[in-house]
């Protein structure tokens, strides 16, 4: 299976990050997997080894988001956010910020779900306040992504 080719992740303009991904399930299911905390908790975990013990996701305009992650070494961080607009089963607009431990500038996120054959094409468009914030965010994401490879690296040396 060539699952890697299904994902695109790229920057757009100075302040956007664009992610697209195809899913075999219809938009209703993909939308639900983004708005039901019990489901979100099962997949939004990042690199191997992290869990999300706290997952609050009140999917209505003005509703609050709080995700807390931790790993087996006891490291952890969290994210808070608010829903701005929801259109079942096609669109979610929310803002979020990470605490590392200081809050990062707000990331404005629009997630679209469109029918794509029998499945769904999901488009996530993130807007950061400025180019430097976006660069810092990518670096932070990289940092988390890199952790697993560092562990592998350590075992190789």
């Amino acid at each position, binding site marked *: 299976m060539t*699952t*890697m080719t*299904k*994902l695109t*992740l790229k920057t757009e303009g100075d302040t956007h990050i664009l*992610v697209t*991904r195809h*899913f*075999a*399930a219809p938009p*209703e*299911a*993909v939308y*639900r*997997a983004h708005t039901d905390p019990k*489901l979100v908790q*099962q*997949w*939004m*975990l*990042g*690199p*191997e080894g992290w869990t999300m013990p706290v997952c609050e996701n009140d999917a209505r305009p003005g509703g609050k988001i709080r995700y807390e992650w931790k790993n087996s070494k006891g490291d952890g961080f969290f994210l808070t956010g608010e829903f701005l607009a929801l259109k079942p089963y096609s669109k979610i607009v929310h803002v979020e910020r990470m605490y590392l431990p200081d809050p990062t500038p707000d990331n404005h996120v629009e997630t679209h779900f469109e029918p794509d054959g029998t499945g769904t094409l999901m488009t996530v468009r993130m807007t950061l306040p400025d*180019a*430097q914030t976006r*660069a*810092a965010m*990518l*670096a*932070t*994401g*990289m*940092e*988390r*992504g*890199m952790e697993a*490879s560092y562990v592998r*690296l350590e075992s190789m040396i």
Partner: protein
Amino acid sequence: MSASPNLNASFAALADPTRRAILARLALGEATVMELARPFEMTQPAISQHLKVLEEAGLIVQRVDGTKRPRRLAKAGIEAMDQWLAMLRKAVEKNYERLDEVLAAMEPNRKGKR
């Protein structure tokens, strides 16, 4: 054993989050020390120290422009950035592979709508 001492220096340089953020900033284009110092709330000497480490690791280069010494990514730095983006992609893809499984598990319950 240690075929490439520069490789060790590169990994050491990349182990620091500020230095990774500096590289991410330089991925957007050349920048002066002052420009690099601004987002980090660090003094210029502190940033200069990080820049020295990155330079010695072969990740960035500087050029002379009057009194300024703007920095930019060296080829190795660009390759390192590409590698990081690939790893970020991997972390995101990992999420969505899990989501595929969650969706597959949801599907049977949704068939024929309650």
